[in-house]
């Protein structure tokens, strides 16, 4: 290897992504207390979202090993879900863990002011991880964030207020239903509203662009605006964006 003066400095700068004297805190993940609610911020602000989207995508692409099964790009892999969403979640602190409580504690919280929600999962082959439903729910409570890709939007997990509906999504095995409560302080967007907002915001970017791939998804757009969840009013589901915005019963039922 030929020594090139200044090369080490350039490598250090490119790896840190911080220009000397311009240390940008917005690219850092946020502090996550164990089980503490982390409120989101508006990452987009008054900007057009172009530079932010490209930066999110660069980090997303770097975060995912090419060897994982996915769609052929670096962004969507079944082991991690949507890496662009994960990167937004990381920046917001939404990838922190939910507070874990027992059944009685969650009973009390949902009687008081938390919205009771259920998530049913199954050990199907689609996500190619061949784990039990209980293990998938355990990852939601205690493991690394794995996001979901949905018809309405991408996000962390789809949930419902209806236990029977959650059960229909589950494989009925022990631990296949995750019961949780959405915190009363959570910022919840109505799907039809946030979708219209995302539609308008994304309209300035051509389809096929990196920017459209992020802002054209209502879930990634809402997470970047600091929302904790989306109420999908047309079907009555809640798409959780911020994992710290829920209190989860452990173990799953």
């Amino acid at each position, binding site marked *: 290897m030929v020594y090139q003066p200044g090369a080490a400095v350039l490598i250090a700068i490119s790896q840190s992504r911080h220009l000397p004297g311009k240390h940008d805190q917005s690219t850092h993940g946020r502090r996550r207390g164990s089980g503490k609610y982390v409120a989101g911020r508006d990452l987009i602000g008054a900007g057009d979202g172009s530079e932010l989207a490209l930066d999110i*995508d660069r980090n997303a692409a770097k975060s995912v090993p090419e060897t994982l099964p*996915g*769609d*052929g*790009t670096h*962004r*969507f892999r079944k082991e991690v879900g*949507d890496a*662009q969403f994960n990167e937004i979640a990381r920046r917001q602190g939404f990838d922190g863990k939910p507070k874990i409580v027992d059944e009685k504690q969650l009973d009390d919280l949902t009687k008081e002011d938390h919205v009771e929600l259920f998530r*049913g999962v*199954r050990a*199907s082959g*689609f*996500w190619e991880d061949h784990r039990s439903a209980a293990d998938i729910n355990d990852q939601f409570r205690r493991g690394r964030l794995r996001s*979901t*890709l*949905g*018809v*309405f939007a*991408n996000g962390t997990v789809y949930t419902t207020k209806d236990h029977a509906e959650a059960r*229909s*999504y589950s494989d009925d095995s022990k631990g296949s239903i995750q019961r949780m409560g959405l915190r009363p302080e959570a910022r919840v967007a109505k799907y039809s509203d946030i*979708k219209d907002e*995302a*539609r308008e915001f994304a309209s300035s970017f051509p*389809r*096929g*662009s*990196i920017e*459209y*791939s992020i802002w*054209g*998804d209502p879930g990634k757009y809402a997470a970047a605006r600091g929302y904790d969840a989306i109420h999908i009013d*047309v*079907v009555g589901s809640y798409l959780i964006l911020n994992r710290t915005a829920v209190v989860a019963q452990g173990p799953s039922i």
Partner: protein
Amino acid sequence: MNAELSQRVGWIIGTHDVTFDERDQVAAAVVHAENWDDLPAGIRSLLLEIERRPGPGGR
């Protein structure tokens, strides 16, 4: 909504650029379908066409 169908269609929609109108059309159809064959032929064709689109940034 059927679990297997929503996973399959969610992956197609979630990994490709779609217009908001396309997303609405697909969502409305998936909510009422029990499986892939149950989807209207036009929606199935649309999903197969979406699946052939390049990923973000043309890749």
